[in-house]
């Protein structure tokens, strides 16, 4: 189980890191969401003990550590808020530049700066 969880964390983090490298704002947001969930899963896994049920033991015995679940839910909520903020930010970038492609955005930036310089020279 620990191995499976570790594998899950690794795959989520790897997929998230891959998406972060894409020149597309929304892919980057999805990448951050995946990495956030990799961290949540790692947090959950950090408190599990072999042979104990995670929350409500049916056949008696001690449950596993509940603190990690409290931490994970806090982290999930924070991740949720951050995702909302990032999406709204990405939307505002789109609304002001009409593109979500990072290459196009930086090209627009460069051409704007050139124009400003030309204006300064002509003044």
């Amino acid at each position, binding site marked *: 189980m620990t191995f499976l969880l570790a594998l899950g964390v690794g795959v989520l983090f790897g997929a998230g890191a891959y998406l*972060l490298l894409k020149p597309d*704002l929304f892919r*980057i947001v999805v990448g*951050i969401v995946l*990495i*956030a969930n*990799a*961290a949540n899963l*790692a*947090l959950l*896994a*950090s*408190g599990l003990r072999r042979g104990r049920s995670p929350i409500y033991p049916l056949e008696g015995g001690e449950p596993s*550590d509940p*603190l*990690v679940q409290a*931490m994970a839910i*806090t*982290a999930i909520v*924070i991740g949720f*808020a*951050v995702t909302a*903020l*990032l999406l709204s*930010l*990405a939307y*505002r*970038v789109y609304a*002001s*530049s009409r593109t979500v492609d990072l290459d196009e*955005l*930086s090209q*627009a*930036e460069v051409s*704007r700066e050139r124009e400003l310089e030309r204006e300064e020279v002509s003044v």
Partner: protein
Amino acid sequence: MVFVPLLLTWVAAAALALMDGRRRSVGWLAVGALAAGLAATAVLAGMVLDGGARETVAGDWPPGIGIVLRADALGVVFAVVSGVVLLAALAYEVAAGVSSRLFPAVVLFLATGLTGLFLTADVFSFYVFFELSMIAAYVLAYYGGEARQLGAGFIFAVVNLLGSFLFLLAVAGTYHVTGTLAMETVAQRIAGVEPNTVILIAVGFFVAFGVKLGLFPFHFWLPTVYVSASPSVAAMLSGAVANIGSYGLLRFGAGILPAELRLGAVALIILGTASIVYGAIQAVSRRTAAEVLAYSAVGQAGYVLIALGVGGPVGLAAAVVYSLANALNKALLFLSVELRGWLVGAAFVIGAFSVAGIPPTAGFFGKVELFRAGVAEDSVALVALIFLGGAVSFLYMFQIYQHDFWRGERRGAASPRALRGMAVGLAVVVVTLGLWPEPLLAAGRRAAEVLMGPT
């Protein structure tokens, strides 16, 4: 008592979020609330520096179960300096005219998050306060709402979120190997854990805080953000938010993982040197004031890392004093970047002197402490590096001064008096600490004692 500064700013922030921050009265209300929070923090700091650390356990739980807020010398001095920076920057923006409804409330949330993370003794609530202040910082980074601010804000948010989640992964690792979240217990138990695991956790923490501080290999987001942000926001990011990085490195590196810090000392000194050299070269080659200051921030972060690498009471005290003086310098310089008038010129010169380490400024004592650390390490190379770094920063600061104030780029009508007042006020603080450095140096010593443990 530890709760008071937190509650004050938090309640005020929640209330102000409902009001229109563009109105002058609401803005000054926020300044008042922030000033009250800062006053409460200062009172707390006085109590802590006089009578030792104060502790509050949330919800009256027995210690060891409840979440602990703990104000010690290291935390309170960082809280006070960040509070001063935030107050000056918020008053500056309110005087200049706030253009976004939420700006004052967001600054108060940032103040709450920062105070909280400087005063917590729990690894996970550190993460929560850390995210609170970082989310406020993301919102501030695109304040103004122009296309390039939005782009820079997006990059800032994504890179720093990656850092935050690395921090969270390191927290998960810490909990897994120690089974506790209270910093003090973590520090005791982690000493007995298998070294390979702990090194991995330590690297996670280091990368997370390195991103916040803008150290050399993690600095790539920093220039874009500082250059495109408005002066008050740049002052907050460089003077208050960047403190998270140096505080985190001190608290987690020297306080919780001292053995790993010693192990990585050489790597820290090498990275610090790279930061200083890279920042200085880039800063000298830039022409606009904001760009020079942004690269200078990368360079200044390197000194903190070197002092941390040297370690011991002398090195840690140097790291504390230097980061505090640096926070004030950066806030002063960024605030004066777009102002005009001879008073602003004088304030800028004081900031420039402080960055270069020329008396009578706070930066001089930061540099003196660094020299002491270099001498304690018995290293000619370190002393030479610190001296050369100072000389180069003198060069690039006066390039700006020459370009902006002598060649007349910033001649013309002086800026409104209230705005100049903020820059001059911070300059007075920097000079006062230069003329009467005892509080700063004592705070550095006490903070180093906290980190070294009772000896």
